[in-house]
């Protein structure tokens, strides 16, 4: 009993918050503003509780297992959710359905927690669905907007289709190995054609969720259609959690098929980086621009994953921590501007520095970090990813990745130039942001600078993995 409580601690805390919100929803008479601050406090409690009593162990006959590294990954996700609740406070306060929004978001977070901890294909499938179905409902949150429902439709159909493919892969893998437990599958793998087909189908489903290139087409549409809070959740938390389980599936379950997936990852990483970058070059809408930039970032994550050793694992977890800070800062600024002025194109951002210097500096810092310019943490994240990718000795692969970083610099700097140097007749007027938004932006900015400068963070992750 005691073990049950400590090992499943983070899931139990999230479940408790979900139940509390349900009761709040039934009772009435709480104003949106006080409810929002209550939820923010609860999410902060959730984040802090993640740092204590982390042990290694498994429950339910190895269906659920956890370790200090998994606990750290869960903390990254909790941190992201807490930051989103602060960043989108202005939008959320206005919303009529505040408790529902957090109910859906926390259900998805619960699904991600179980997904990272899963030790069995059944639990993995169930938690993957728990992590995607509520997000599709969240994407439709602007009920009156045509674009929102179109984005949600595209999201639910493509995620249902991809989970169908995932299930077909799982059923073939079950037929070929006779087990659905992560611990027992590796002994049964001998790279027979049936197993390779099953692996490719599983890989396809992961590629859909991570928006790796041939399966990326839904990403930009869903990101543009959804409200910005949901877009931030999709691009940071959802993607991060799938990356975590993807890496542990590849490294633990499919380790005997390393040669198969190494080639696959190299090809897809190059395709993802090149196509993500080329499409990002011509985008005008800021959300669509960030969507394609996040596709390109996934390409760099794949470069790190391809290494197949602990260096790759460490580099990916470290990069996702940085990615949470930098992408949420960019989405936070976009959310504030869209909420107060309704402007969402890059041309509208011209001359932003004249009127909103604080927002401009945070946006510039976030974009520099995404591009990987030295003093910011993004540089160190990319550096470790490429080092891990180069450990196999394929230097042409690393060269292509580095060239793609140069291309990405062009379009990130295009936004920075619009903000700082271009003149504009009627720029976005001066915006007075709330305290919580300002606090979250400062946390993100500090995170972008400090995660790179404090080397013990990287050492700590390395000691865990």
């Amino acid at each position: 009993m005691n073990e049950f409580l400590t090992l499943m601690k983070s899931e139990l805390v999230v479940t408790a918050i979900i139940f509390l919100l349900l009761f709040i929803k039934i009772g009435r008479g709480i104003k949106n503003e006080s409810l929002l601050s209550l939820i923010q406090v609860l999410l902060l409690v959730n984040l802090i509780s993640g740092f204590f009593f982390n042990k290694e162990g498994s429950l339910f006959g190895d269906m659920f297992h956890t370790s200090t590294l998994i606990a750290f990954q869960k903390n990254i996700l909790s941190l992201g959710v807490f930051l989103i609740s602060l960043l989108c406070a202005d939008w959320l306060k206005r919303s009529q359905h505040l408790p529902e929004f957090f109910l859906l978001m926390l259900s998805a977070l619960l699904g991600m927690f179980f997904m990272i901890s899963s030790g069995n294909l059944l639990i993995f499938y169930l938690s993957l669905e728990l992590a995607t179905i509520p997000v599709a409902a969240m994407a439709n949150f602007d009920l009156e907007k045509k674009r929102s429902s179109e984005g949600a439709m595209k999201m639910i159909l493509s995620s249902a289709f991809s989970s169908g493919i995932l299930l077909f892969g799982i059923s073939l893998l079950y037929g070929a190995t006779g087990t659905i437990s992560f611990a027992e599958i590796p002994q049964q793998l001998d790279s027979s054609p049936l197993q390779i087909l099953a692996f490719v189908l599983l890989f396809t489903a992961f590629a859909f969720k991570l928006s790796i290139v041939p399966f990326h087409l839904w990403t930009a549409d869903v990101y543009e259609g959804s409200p910005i809070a949901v877009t931030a959740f999709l691009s940071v938390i959802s993607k991060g959690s799938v990356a975590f389980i993807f890496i542990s599936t590849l490294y633990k379950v499919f380790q005997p098929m390393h040669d198969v997936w190494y080639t696959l990852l190299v090809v897809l990483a190059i395709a993802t980086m090149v196509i993500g970058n080329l499409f990002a070059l011509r985008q005008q809408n800021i959300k669509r621009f960030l969507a394609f930039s996040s596709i390109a970032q996934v390409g760099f994550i794949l470069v790190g994953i391809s290494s197949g050793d602990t260096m790759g694992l460490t580099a990916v977890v470290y990069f996702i921590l940085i990615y949470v800070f930098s992408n949420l800062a960019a989405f936070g600024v976009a959310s504030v501007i869209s909420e107060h002025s309704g402007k969402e194109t890059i041309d509208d951002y011209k001359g932003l520095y004249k009127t909103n210097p604080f927002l401009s500096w945070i946006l510039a810092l976030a974009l520099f970090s995404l591009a990987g310019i030295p003093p910011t943490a993004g540089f160190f994240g990319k550096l470790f990813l490429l080092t891990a990718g180069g450990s196999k000795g394929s230097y042409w692969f690393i060269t292509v990745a580095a060239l793609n970083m140069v291309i990405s610099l062009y379009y990130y700097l295009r936004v920075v130039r619009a903000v700082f140097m271009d003149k504009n007749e009627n720029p976005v007027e001066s915006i007075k942001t709330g305290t919580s938004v300002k606090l979250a932006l400062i946390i993100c900015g500090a995170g972008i600078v400090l995660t790179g400068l404090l080397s013990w963070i990287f050492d700590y992750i390395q000691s865990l993995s």
Partner: protein
Amino acid sequence: MMEPGLYHILFISAALFFIGVYGFLTRRNLITMLMSIELILNSVNLNFIAFNKYLWPHKMDGLFFTLFIIAIAAAEAAVAIAIIINLYRSHQSIDVENAEDLKY
């Protein structure tokens, strides 16, 4: 009369899977697309039960998986139909060709 073996069932389930994929990619009506996804899921169910019966009869993993797939398919269809109804309210149509605000 010949007793149906594993290969017969696998043939049916593979055929169902590809009919589902074909339907999902070619149909333009959202409800029909959802039905194609149900076909895919049912082909997976057949697969699991056949593998469990013919290859690994001593453990029940395949049957349990099937039960969960049926439940999740219902949940997914519920959310998808809610979204489609909302789409119908704003677009007055459930044809994917008419939902084309977001492009490129």
